């Protein structure tokens, strides 16, 4: 009986510790996010029309947008109330191969207009019901870091001691191309910055600022507003 009550009290302690850790994580993982929008044309998307979000990987640019960021924006946009039909990036690139590969992808609206002269490609895009093509550029970068931590292991056990801190900056821009009217419809940008911490007293506890996720949610929200308002 006594053993059971001990187990319950241990469990409660664990729950308490988890709640405290969660609260600390929420408090310390702060992120500042900014979203901006420039509209050049009115937009309208009806049932049966689709859009695709592509990461800009054309050359000679040496920077690529993270694949999971593109997935995150597409998934969040699909989950919105407006139920926009967002095509899967890899499936779109495969179905239009070889016209959206890094070497061949159109770098601007004029290049896309020229590309649509390809009868087979134009037909394929029509079959897909593609109305908007959204190019995402940008990355999440570590802008600064500091602190130190040392870890050791002995036959008697191990542990870490120290404190690390780092700041991440996420900056993304989405350019929206209207493939039916062959014009740029507008741009949406999402920036986020945040500092993460990792104190260690035997066990390191990462308090991570979810910078990229915040930039993703901000961009998805703003893109939804762009198409529905």
């Amino acid at each position, binding site marked *: 009986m006594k053993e059971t009550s001990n187990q319950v009290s241990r469990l409660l302690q664990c729950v308490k510790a988890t709640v405290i850790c969660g609260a600390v994580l929420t408090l310390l993982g702060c992120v500042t996010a900014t979203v901006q929008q420039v509209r050049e044309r009115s937009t309208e998307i009806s049932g049966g029309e689709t859009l695709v979000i592509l990461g800009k990987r054309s050359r000679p640019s040496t920077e690529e947008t993270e694949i*999971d960021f593109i997935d995150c924006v597409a998934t969040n946009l699909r989950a919105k109330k407006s139920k926009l039909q967002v095509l899967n990036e890899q499936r779109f690139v495969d179905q239009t191969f070889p016209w959206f590969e890094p070497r061949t992808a159109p770098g601007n609206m004029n290049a896309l207009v020229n590309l649509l002269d390809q009868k087979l490609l134009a037909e394929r895009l029509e079959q897909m019901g593609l109305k908007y093509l959204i190019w995402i550029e940008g990355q999440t970068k570590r802008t600064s870091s500091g602190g130190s931590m040392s870890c050791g292991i002995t036959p008697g056990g191990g542990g870490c001691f120290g404190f690390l801190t780092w700041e991440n900056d996420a900056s993304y821009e989405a350019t929206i191309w209207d493939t039916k009217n062959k014009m740029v419809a507008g741009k949406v940008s999402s920036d986020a910055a945040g500092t993460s911490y990792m104190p260690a007293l035997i066990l390191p506890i990462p308090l991570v600022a979810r910078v990229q996720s915040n930039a993703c949610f901000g961009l998805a929200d703003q893109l939804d507003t762009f198409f529905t308002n």
Partner: protein
Amino acid sequence: MNKWHRIKMLHCGLMAAILVGCASTQVSLETDFPSPLVERQSTPVALIINESLTDFVHNETVEKGGDFVIEVGSAQRALFERLASGLFSNHTFFESIDDQNIAALAIEPDIRELQFATPEQTRTDYYEVWMRYEFKLYDLERNLKSTWSIPAYGKANKNNHTGKRDGLEAAALAACRDVMAVFSIRFSNEQLVADWLKLDSPVIQDGGE
């Protein structure tokens, strides 16, 4: 657990870590490719997929980076089957240019060179793979008429992949897709290819019976 047991386990752990650290990075491409969305060529073509292409393996030892084994040959049959299905309406596969059944203009692809770089070497975020393909173009009598060389390049962001194997696999796959893209788009515009395609319908001299 006594002290000696702990020391033994620590030793085992360290040895395992050292062995893992020394192991080679083995990359094998076994994937499917998309079919190119281009106007099909009506000229009958024979594609020679020989063993030197399908068995192509690049071995390299990088200083402080370990051994690398990149097997791109395993993906070549799938690559050229997909490429041919999109680009040629009438094509046949053969394993050697010496096959007596070849009755069409023949193309024999080969990988002449492969180079790669890891983020540790270039101090960038990218795994990179360069390949140089060579396409031997044969006439109806299986005489070599010309050689078309295509450089291919692929890169993969280390942040999108877990470890060297995944990163190099993605970069090699991107390079394979690159050669497919170049081949399918330039095939109808390349002068060398246009001259070769003319060999399928020799000009009949006036007065010739």
